[in-house]
């Protein structure tokens, strides 16, 4: 889901940077109020966890690869705004140091993975978990489904961003200038592999860690309610 440089045209890249700048500003304003000094290590661990979990490429035999993002997990533990900051940090290091995701595409990648995943994820988690006790099985299932839905929402949006490119710009000869695949190929491709496989990996990662946290640190699970 890390869109490389060149797959999105300047218009799309620019729009997503323009959208991200106020969101990053809002995130720092909100996190200033909600993040406790004692939570700083958890923010760092959450960001690093997301970075590392994205290194675990899952193969589709003979096909493509994909990975979990861990974004819903971070959002459940720290709230979606802090998760936005944590995942943005991971994406910036990935792009700058490892060429994983483009610099021009960073705004779009941050919107997909650092905004859509945490907010759709936490929304789903709250909806399904309801007022269930922090230690309940229902919260584990809610976390898993939130992971599944959050990752898929981001993947489908990335598919739309890819698919938009041939519509927006073509050379005089009718060739694509950026991503060559339109909606009809890009959206089903991105949606299909995430709905079938990678979404479930995100679900499993989210549910397992939440289950672990219920035993080890249940006090962390109430956090998303307050932010």
């Amino acid at each position, binding site marked *: *889901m*890390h*869109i*490389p*440089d*060149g797959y999105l045209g300047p218009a799309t890249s620019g729009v997503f940077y323009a959208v991200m700048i106020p969101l990053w500003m809002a995130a*720092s304003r909100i996190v200033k*109020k909600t*993040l406790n*000094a004692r*939570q700083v*290590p*958890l*923010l*760092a*661990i*959450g*960001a*690093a*966890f997301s*970075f*590392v*979990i994205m*290194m*675990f*490429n*899952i*193969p*589709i*035999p*003979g*096909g*493509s*690869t*994909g*990975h979990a993002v861990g974004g819903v997990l971070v959002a459940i533990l720290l709230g979606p705004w802090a998760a936005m*900051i*944590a995942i943005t*940090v991971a994406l*910036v*290091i990935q792009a700058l140091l*490892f*060429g*994983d995701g*483009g*610099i*021009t595409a960073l705004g779009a990648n941050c919107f997909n993975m650092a905004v859509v995943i945490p907010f759709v994820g936490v929304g789903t988690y709250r909806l399904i978990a309801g007022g269930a006790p922090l230690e309940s099985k229902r919260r584990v299932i809610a976390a898993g489904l939130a992971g599944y839905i959050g990752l898929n929402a981001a993947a489908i949006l990335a598919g739309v961003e*890819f698919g938009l490119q041939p519509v927006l710009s073509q*050379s005089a000869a009718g*060739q*694509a*200038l*950026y*991503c*060559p695949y339109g909606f009809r190929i890009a959206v089903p*491709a*991105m949606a299909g*592999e995430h709905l079938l496989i990678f979404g479930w990996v995100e679900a499993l990662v989210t549910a397992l860690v939440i289950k672990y946290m219920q035993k*080890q640190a249940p006090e*962390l699970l109430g956090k998303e309610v307050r932010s």
Partner: protein
Amino acid sequence: MKNTKKLWMGLGLLILLSPLGLILPDHFKAGSAWGEWGTDELQSRVGYVPQGLQKLGEFWKAPLPDYAFKGWEDKGLARLSTAYVFSGIVGAALVVLLAWLLGRALARKNE
């Protein structure tokens, strides 16, 4: 939180296991993620390299491309796995540092 030590250890363990993300795709003959192909692969997929993509694609030269050292593409899985773990350590360390500094700058000082 009293259990961050366990979480740090878990993170370290994940970094050591990260070459699985390299070895498994190789074993199952899986290629790039969808939409993350290099120009050679695009050429063979669609028959041309989109002009704008070619130009913008050269926008940034990452120091550790694809979590490996430059020119290590054909070094074999053992060495690539070493480079992968090295990348994981360096990357995670920088992510921790940056997130920590941001967190410190933003967080409420009291409590």
